[in-house]
């Protein structure tokens, strides 16, 4: 890496009032031909390009992005990272990602502010208790750290939660994954972009894909707003717009795109030093380093590409938050936004080849893709480079909707993930 960030570069630049930092990645015009083109410059797409260059020795790679990098769902999520999924295939894949997170700042020489502050999943009824205890055992059998906390232990671990037995949905216990936590969303995109760029990957922003050119059963290239780009391998990582790109290639995906909302409060002093999720009442909350409470709401029921959701969803989430944390009752909300998420019928992603040679899809992450960013890129790069899945993403192929071998995490992994 040309400009390695270190304590010395920080001191050196302090002498020139931080006015001489070099830009972290180039802004190139597209070449006529690439060995592989990644469509979508979010965290997953940039990570894919990074690992293609680093682990698979492909050098002539482009990432095309219709807006700016990290400006889609990478910049619109609640940054929660965990791997406590029920099924073996999911647990292995998400824990692969979590292990990559643990070394990511060093790997990228970029502080992604990964903070293992723990993630709790609260239980509010007998069924929740049974399901979450089952998940705790399943996680431990898969080598993933997970503990069960009683109501008293919940109160001790996060004292602002209302543990009174008199509330509508009382807290009957919780799971806790201590290795889980949060990271800085922008830093992940920027870190991967900088890393990929330094290995020669062209990151082309403001370049929208308008068509996918096929010759028979293989791909020839993409039509973009910056002209035609020839390539024999196209990896599509376009989140909510995956179906739009699939339609261009003439295939259908089992996805529905819906708005998912999140909001932040005005900044306050440190009050919550972990992440608390509650599936039964659909509320989750953590606190950013700036002091804002970061609150995740739910999706709307209908398909929409508008990046805004309905007021009812926000209201429902805030009602639940206020019952669980009466201390927040006088807080004001600062910002609210929506992202378009592509949801699979089984709430698991697709990292897969398709029926068209050279066309690969990484999609269907639904409401919980951020946590998987490094693992998703790593496994997708393997799938593109070798033209076959890594053993960790073999179960996440597109053919599972035909074979019936689904990875059904809808009820299993927590609604909000």
């Amino acid at each position: 890496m040309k400009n390695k960030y270190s304590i010395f570069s920080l001191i050196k630049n302090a002498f020139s009032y931080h006015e001489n930092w070099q830009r972290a990645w180039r802004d190139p015009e597209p070449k006529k031909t690439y060995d592989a083109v990644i469509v979508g410059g979010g965290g997953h797409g940039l990570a894919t390009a990074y690992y293609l260059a680093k682990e698979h020795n492909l050098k002539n790679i482009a990432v095309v992005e219709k807006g700016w990098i990290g400006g889609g769902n990478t910049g619109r999520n609640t940054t929660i990272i965990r791997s406590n999924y029920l099924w073996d295939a999911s647990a292995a894949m998400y824990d692969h990602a979590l292990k990559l997170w643990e070394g990511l700042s060093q790997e990228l020489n970029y502080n992604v502010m990964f903070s293992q502050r723990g993630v709790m999943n609260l239980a509010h009824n007998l069924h929740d208790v049974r399901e979450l205890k089952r998940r705790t055992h399943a996680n431990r059998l898969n080598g993933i750290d997970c503990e069960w906390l009683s109501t008293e232990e919940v109160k001790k671990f996060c004292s602002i939660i209302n543990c009174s037995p008199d509330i509508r949905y009382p807290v009957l216990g919780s799971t806790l994954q201590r290795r889980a936590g949060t990271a800085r969303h922008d830093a992940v995109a920027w870190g991967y972009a900088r890393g990929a760029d330094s290995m020669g990957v062209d990151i082309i922003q403001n370049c929208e894909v308008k068509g996918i050119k096929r010759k028979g059963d293989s791909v020839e290239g993409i039509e973009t707003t910056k002209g035609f780009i020839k390539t024999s391998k196209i990896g599509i990582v376009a989140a909510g717009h995956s179906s739009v790109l699939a339609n261009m290639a003439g295939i259908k995906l089992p996805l529905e795109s819906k708005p998912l909302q999140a909001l932040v409060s005005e900044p306050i002093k440190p009050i919550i030093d972990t992440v608390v999720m509650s599936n039964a009442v659909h509320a989750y909350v953590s606190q950013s380093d700036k002091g804002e409470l970061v609150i995740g709401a739910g999706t709307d029921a209908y398909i929409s590409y508008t990046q805004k959701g309905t007021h009812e969803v926000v209201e429902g989430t805030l009602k639940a938050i206020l019952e669980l944390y009466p201390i927040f009752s006088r807080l004001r909300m600062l910002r609210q936004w929506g992202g378009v998420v592509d949801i699979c019928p089984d709430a698991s992603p697709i990292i897969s080849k398709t029926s068209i040679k050279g066309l690969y899809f990484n999609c269907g992450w639904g409401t919980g893709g951020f946590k998987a960013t490094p693992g998703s890129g790593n496994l997708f790069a393997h799938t593109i480079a070798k033209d076959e899945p890594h053993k960790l993403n073999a179960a996440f192929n597109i053919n599972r909707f035909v074979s019936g071998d689904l990875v059904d995490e809808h009820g299993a992994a927590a609604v909000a993930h």
Partner: protein
Amino acid sequence: MFIIKCPYCGERDHSEFSYGGEAHIVRPKQPTELSDDQWAEYLFMRKNIKGLQYERWNHAHGCRQWFNVGRDTSNDKIHFVYKMGESPPK
């Protein structure tokens, strides 16, 4: 957020309605003769259109009738509403 004009009750807030997904997906007449691919197509594969979509809604907190809606999913604008069994207006 938008208002839906129920063909039976008139204009109401969308929160009174339940969404029923893509319209005009017909259940196969001979289910036993379907291949796995055809089942996958029927059960899971969706157009997920960005633009004008034909979809079903149910006036769940009203007359409880099902009907069809033509809505632009890129801006949530509703272009037309038509009853079950009718073909979409051109």
